[in-house]
């Protein structure tokens, strides 16, 4: 068991692994439930990965470490718009998707790559963000409508 700061979350969504995979990476979907952001990447191992804010500024950057469509995606992730978070360096995000009947179990682990055990402002920030984003993703896939609060970039975060 790693003692690096980490956030772990599991959510079950009534959908298919194919639809969930597209919803996690394609701008058409992320703009609906993920604070109007979108990602750019060639989606192959070693490719660069970037997240952009609605105004087009870079929000996060990293690199694809592992990719197995509809099953597993691992990438490095550094925040690029809050200097105190950028200073903590890279984290690693792992999504694992598993079809179980008419639902998919989505497991997300977000952990610091280098920072030793202790408080991480980055992990604190994503720990508060992920439950809202993943709740909204589930609502979007099951009802067609994401959560109102996650449709736009939050005004207090620049």
């Amino acid at each position, binding site marked *: 068991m790693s003692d690096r700061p980490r956030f772990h*979350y*599991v*959510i*079950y*969504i*009534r959908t298919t692994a194919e639809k969930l995979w597209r919803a996690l990476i394609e701008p058409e979907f992320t703009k609906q439930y993920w604070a109007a952001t979108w990602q750019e990447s060639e989606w192959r191992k070693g490719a660069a990965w970037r997240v952009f804010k609605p105004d087009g500024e870079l929000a996060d950057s990293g690199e694809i470490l592992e990719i197995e469509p509809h099953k597993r995606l691992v990438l490095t992730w550094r925040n690029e718009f809050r200097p105190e978070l950028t200073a903590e360096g890279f984290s690693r995000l792992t999504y694992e998707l598993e079809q*179980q*009947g*008419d*639902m998919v179990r989505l497991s997300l682990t977000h952990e610091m790559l280098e920072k030793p055990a202790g408080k991480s402002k980055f992990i604190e920030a994503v720990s508060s963000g992920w*439950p*809202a984003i993943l*709740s*909204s993703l*589930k*609502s979007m896939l*099951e*009802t067609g*409508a994401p*959560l*109102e*609060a996650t449709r736009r970039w939050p005004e207090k975060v620049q």
Partner: protein
Amino acid sequence: MNAQPRPKFVYVVYIVSTPEKVFAALTDEKTSAQYWSGNRVVSDWKIGSPFALKLKPGMHDVVGKVLAFDPPRRLAYTFHPHHDGLEREGPSRVAFEIEPLAGQVRLTVTHDEFPAGSASFKQVSKGWPHVLSSLKSLLETGHGMVAPWYKEAETA
């Protein structure tokens, strides 16, 4: 050296609903069966009264007592499983906090006060994400979800 921190499970989920509906779903026996894979919460919800999570026939219930009942914001009970040898562990504690936000509810579930090395902690850490995902589906779509480990038990 510091003592091993006691395990604690915390889960936050946002639901398009009202605090009243979420609170009712957490405390109503019939509704609970719809999102808790057929299991049912049973209590008269007076402080100190017995609480039971009635499991499928042939399984021993989870029992406890009501610690807090403050509709529609807060609910807490002790949680003592009596299956798989878990009755030998002491009870743990579950608390639900319900916060209204614009058009939605933030539900925070904190399950703590486990004994060190608890096996119950591992089970509830696996179980809660499904129960709470299913609760969200029920309140937003009218349909809960059955956990795969219950489906496997049915077909076994």
